[in-house]
């Protein structure tokens, strides 16, 4: 059985050494999270996920959810685990204190999310979706709606869902058919079929708050005519107690490649009572405000699964004895050397490690930016943070899940044939991670969002918050004797490639959209590598300073420096290939007629 140990040391490094979160004690909520409190929260969280959630991961995978006449039963132990989670108040961690939340910084919540996804991604999705529903109602609901739904979602007494997909409408929500007819009393009758609804029906909570996109008849055609509704599984009485069953029923659950412990439902709405959230026909706008968070959340899922896969691969590589080292026997007392001596195993381990540690730092920096964008007293700082979050979000979603999946695959590879055997648990990580590349907007869509929407927005303004600090960092540190040559110069070269590729896309893509579309996925990867390069260079700088100051945990900081160097030398150079691919243009990609395929 796989094991998991929360990477608390790395969290502390990012929070205290890299981000230096103490500097932001002036922001609302941050003062409530001094170092000791954060430590306690992380340790409590680690205990929960290691002791309660991780042991259920394989159980959930083997048992899956069960559907019987509209009811869905979650795997053995999920209900009890959810009760433990709920009673400890984990759902309230970053939520608004006005509705029973603790108001802690988002960046703290992100670490807890990562741990939960490492331990049991299928389970983590239940509260994750509640948080999505919470965010939508919090941003766009009326006061009455907030009072009615938020406290229960925050406490976890109820859970939430997001209903977008329909059989004929996946990425293209303009094709939506579910309709919402006004009832004259302010409510709507919702009729239609939604599919792929995670946590759509289950036995964990007494009520489920469905957030449903639907079209009001007579509204604008396509995506501009979509509105957002709250449709509770049980209607709510004026006193807050549960009333009649609403006209929404689970028709079946899907049989999936992974995340078996999460119920993925077909939901049939048959004249269900729904309540408009925000303005009519502005449903997509309401969705988009929470999309950043949801997409980052999926990125963190990719990271979480990658982390646990890596940990097990590293343990296995130290234990498993096969062959002798190419450079001579390393364990003469044993029949063979542990496979960790082999360069190719090292290649895989270092690649995984450089990814997870870099991605974690980048995700947490972004989490902090979300806090800035919501809580910073200075409007300009809020806008700047919002710009950068908007730019980074599609990249983090796609890159963390693509590389997360790739990491689970590498981890499985380290196991050789055992990786392919269920009992070892490695193939579950591969299967579970695979969905993260698909849902919440496929990674191809993320790349299009980056290139088609985020780059041109305000004539490249979003880029400014990424490029200017990076440009300054390079200028200020390229001559630094400690990090200049090893870390900053490779970064400077990669950044120049990124600038050239961006300018190329801006020039070509404007005239020929297919060029931008063809470049998008490679461009996203190029962007991700440069962003990771920046964060790795920053980490190298901090680690070097810590070592110079005589920090206690020398091994930890030295490992950071080595991993940073590995990233610069063995991962960042991919930017050259990516730039070449991007600037090769769309021609060979688009030349063949459709019937030649």
């Amino acid at each position, binding site marked *: 059985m796989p094991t998991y140990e929360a990477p608390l040391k790395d969290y502390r490094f990012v929070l205290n050494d890299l981000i230096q979160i103490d500097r932001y004690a002036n922001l609302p909520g941050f003062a409530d999270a001094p170092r000791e409190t954060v430590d306690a929260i992380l340790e409590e969280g680690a205990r929960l996920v290691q002791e309660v959630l991780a042991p259920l991961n394989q159980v959930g995978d083997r048992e899956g959810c069960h559907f019987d006449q509209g009811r869905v039963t979650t795997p053995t132990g999920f209900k009890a685990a959810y009760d433990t989670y709920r009673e400890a108040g984990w759902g309230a961690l970053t939520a608004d204190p006005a509705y029973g939340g603790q108001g802690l910084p988002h960046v703290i919540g992100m670490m807890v999310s990562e741990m939960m996804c490492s331990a049991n991604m299928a389970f983590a999705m239940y509260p994750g979706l509640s948080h999505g529903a919470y965010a939508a109602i919090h941003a766009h609901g009326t006061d009455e709606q907030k009072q009615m739904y938020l406290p229960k979602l925050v406490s976890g007494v109820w859970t939430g869902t997001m209903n977008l997909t329909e059989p004929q409408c996946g990425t293209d929500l303009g094709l939506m058919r579910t309709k919402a007819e006004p009832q004259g009393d302010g409510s709507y009758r919702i009729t239609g079929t939604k599919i792929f609804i995670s946590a759509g029906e289950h036995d964990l909570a007494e009520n489920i708050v469905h957030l449903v996109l639907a079209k009001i008849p007579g509204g604008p055609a396509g995506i501009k005519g979509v509105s957002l509704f709250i449709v509770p599984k049980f209607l709510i009485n004026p006193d807050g107690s549960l009333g009649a069953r609403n006209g929404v029923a689970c028709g079946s659950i899907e049989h999936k490649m992974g995340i078996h412990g999460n119920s993925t439902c077909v939901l049939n709405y048959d004249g269900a009572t729904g309540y408009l959230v925000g303005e009519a026909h502005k449903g997509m706008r309401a969705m988009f405000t929470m999309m950043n968070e949801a997409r980052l959340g999926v990125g963190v899922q990719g990271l979480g699964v990658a982390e646990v896969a890596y940990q097990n691969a590293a343990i296995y590589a130290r234990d498993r004895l096969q062959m002798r080292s190419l450079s001579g026997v390393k364990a003469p007392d044993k029949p063979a050397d542990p496979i960790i001596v082999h360069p190719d195993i090292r290649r895989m381990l270092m690649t995984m490690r450089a990814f997870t540690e870099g991605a974690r730092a980048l995700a947490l920096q972004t989490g902090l930016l979300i806090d800035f964008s919501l809580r910073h007293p200075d409007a*300009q700082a809020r806008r700047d943070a919002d710009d950068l979050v908007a730019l980074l979000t599609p990249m983090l979603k796609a890159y963390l899940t693509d590389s997360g999946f790739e990491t689970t695959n590498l981890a499985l590879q380290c196991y050789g044939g055992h990786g392919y055997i269920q009992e070892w648990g490695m193939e579950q990580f591969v299967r579970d991670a695979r969905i993260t590349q698909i849902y919440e907007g496929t990674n191809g869509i993320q790349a299009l969002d980056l290139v088609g929407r985020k780059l041109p927005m*305000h*004539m*490249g*303004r*979003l*880029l*400014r918050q990424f*490029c*200017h600090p*990076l*440009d300054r960092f390079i200028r200020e540190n390229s001559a630094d004797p400690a990090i200049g040559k090893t870390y900053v110069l490779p970064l400077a070269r990669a950044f120049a490639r990124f*600038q050239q590729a*961006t*300018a190329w896309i*801006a020039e070509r893509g404007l005239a020929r959209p297919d060029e931008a579309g063809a470049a998008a996925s490679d461009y996203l990867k190029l962007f991700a590598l440069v962003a990771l390069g920046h964060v790795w260079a920053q980490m190298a700088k901090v680690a070097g300073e810590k070592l110079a100051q005589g920090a206690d945990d020398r091994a930890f900081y030295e490992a950071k420096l080595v991993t940073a160097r590995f990233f610069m030398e063995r991962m960042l150079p991919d930017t050259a290939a990516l730039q070449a691919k991007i600037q090769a243009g769309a021609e060979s990609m688009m030349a063949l007629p459709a019937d030649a395929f």
Partner: protein
Amino acid sequence: MGAAPGIARVAVIGSGVMGAAIAAHVANAGVPVVLLDIAAEGADRSKLAKGAIDRLLKTKPAPLMHPSFARRITPGNLEDDLGLIAACDWICEAIIEKVEIKRALYQRLQTVRKPGSIVSSNTSTIPLAELVRGQDPGFAADFAITHFFNPPRYMRLLEVVGGAQTRADALAALRRFGDETLGKEVVAAKDTPGFIANRIGIYWSVTAMEAAFDQGLSIEEADAVVGRPMGVPKTGIFGLADLTGLDLGPHVVGSMLKLLPKSDAFVTAYRPDHPLNALTARLIADGYIGRKGKGGFYRDRGKEVLDFATGTYRPVVPAELDSVKAAKSGLKALVEHPDKGGRYAWTVLSRVLVYAADLVPEIADDILAVDAAMRCGYAWKEGPFQQIDRLGSGWLAEKLKAEGRPVPRLLEIAAGRPFYKIEGGKALYLTPGGDYAEIPVAPDAWTLADKKRGRERIAGNRSASLWDIGDGVACLEIHTKMNAIDGDVIALVAQAAKIDKRGYKALIIGGDADNFSVGANIGLGLFAANLALWPVLEGGIAEGQSAYMALKYAPFPVVAAPARMTLGGGCEICLHSDAVQAHAETYMGLVEAGVGLVPGWGGCTELVIRATLNKKRPGGPMPPIAQVFETISTAKVSASAAEARDLLLLRPGDGITMNRRRLLADAKARALALAADYKPPAPVEINLPGATARAALDMAVEGFVRQGKATAHDKVVAGALAKVLSGGDTDITRSLKEQDIMALEREAFVSLLKTNATLDRIEHMLETGKPLRN
């Protein structure tokens, strides 16, 4: 500029809106003008004309190109000052539209005007034959109608109508004066009701409004169709009515109905009981006479609109018509579109085109006059016959036939052939006789298109081209959107500076585009700045500087021919030319400060050198620097070429051309004159005071910030500018070369680009078209 021989002094009688504005425009042309109105009661019997001149100075858009030109207008009254007319070569009457009063005035004029002087009326509704009835034959020979459009400074059309007895040389003198001196597009019209432009324009207006109502379009929808998609100003038809005044409508329609033959389509189609008439009458009665009143079809600055169904105002709902989107691929796509916008467009366009086609040769000898009148009098992008060519004359005839409508004779004569065509390098038009004739191009009045026809460019890229315009002169044309300057333009400027190697002896810079140039393409710059592509931006600045310097020191003369917007990098092209021949309507300025920058292509350098070496300046190094500092830091833009002189953007020797169609010819003539015995300018050096001047400028800005007249970032921008203009780290004893000051420009430019506030300004300008005050 200046008077064409024959008319050296002008009188305008009637100081109402039109009369005063015509007088102003004569003054704009540098011609002294007498403005007379009836004698007022009281001490100052000339107060009507004097009041009119005062109003000219306050009216927006300004009828005068420079406030000082008001002094060229001599006010007076018809009792005491009629004698002033004796010295005038042309007397333009612009009094009330009452035939008896006009005739009485003419009789008085006869007693004082000098022999051979010309009298004209600006009437728009009274036939010439009526006006001269009963006057003596000598008067009729000297009399014509000169019909200006409001506002006369800005509307390019001048319809000149001669009567049966009018002297040919009098008409020729008027046309020439109108064309060369006043800069108007002079169209020969006949003595028919409404002449050309109003005859078609009023029919168009009534048709478009009634059809909108009849076919169930909202006002917004109608204006979205009869606007840009149909090649007319974006105000649309109802917006235009608000602009000109609803109260005017019934008068002009009434006079047309009275004057036109009963068989005219205008009269036969007119429905006095159309509900729109009652609605308009009610609006007028309630004071909703358009923008000059409480509102009209729109009110509250265009936020609310009249709803035909309820007769009340409601919030504007932007029109969503597929036909309007389809119009991007052409007029035909619009009228063929099946939605209500397309059907409406077809109704309006087909009626108007048929009406116009039926009127040649009744109201004009040829289609050229009709098309020119509609372009210049109603600001249509293309005249009716150009529009027919867009549809195809055969297609239009077939479609009319299919709908059972009569086909105009001229359309049958065309028999499927186009009204205009290019053949053998010549531009031809279809005469009413059915033959093609060459569109005449005068040797001293042409467009670049006339020179380009049938030729390959000498060199060029996607943003700019070099053309051979004959006599060893080349023309550099910019053809980007709004003539913005990008890297390709700069590259071609650099190439143009070596055009002597290809045997050319002079270069002019200009073209047919509306604007000379709105300046550098800041969109590209902003994207690059956001990307932190500093080396690229620095390189762009340096390349522009060296290209412009190459122009300045080229071994042949360079003459810039700016017109309309000539801003930023476009203005800097002019600053580096040996001479400028500017269109009178040239709006020039170094506007970089508006987007948080300083001029970087030598604008600061050239202007500070110009000011410092200006012999008329008061002594000491500070006044010239302060003047340039004010011009650039407040992003001043001249409202005319005349005003550009005040800002030193035009030098005393630079010329001004009133008629846009003569601009390039004048520039070419200037270039050829300079080419004889040309020597490039000698490089100059100046001494600038350095830190002391900079401190003084900074202090002045600090004062403005304290008074709330300047923002925090204004201070940053002005500080960067002060450093450049004061010469950086220099002192008055050191001589600075142009390159030294340009290095300061580059440094200031890039340092400002690295500030958020400058990038926000650029972004705001690009997204809203307005400056951001941050």
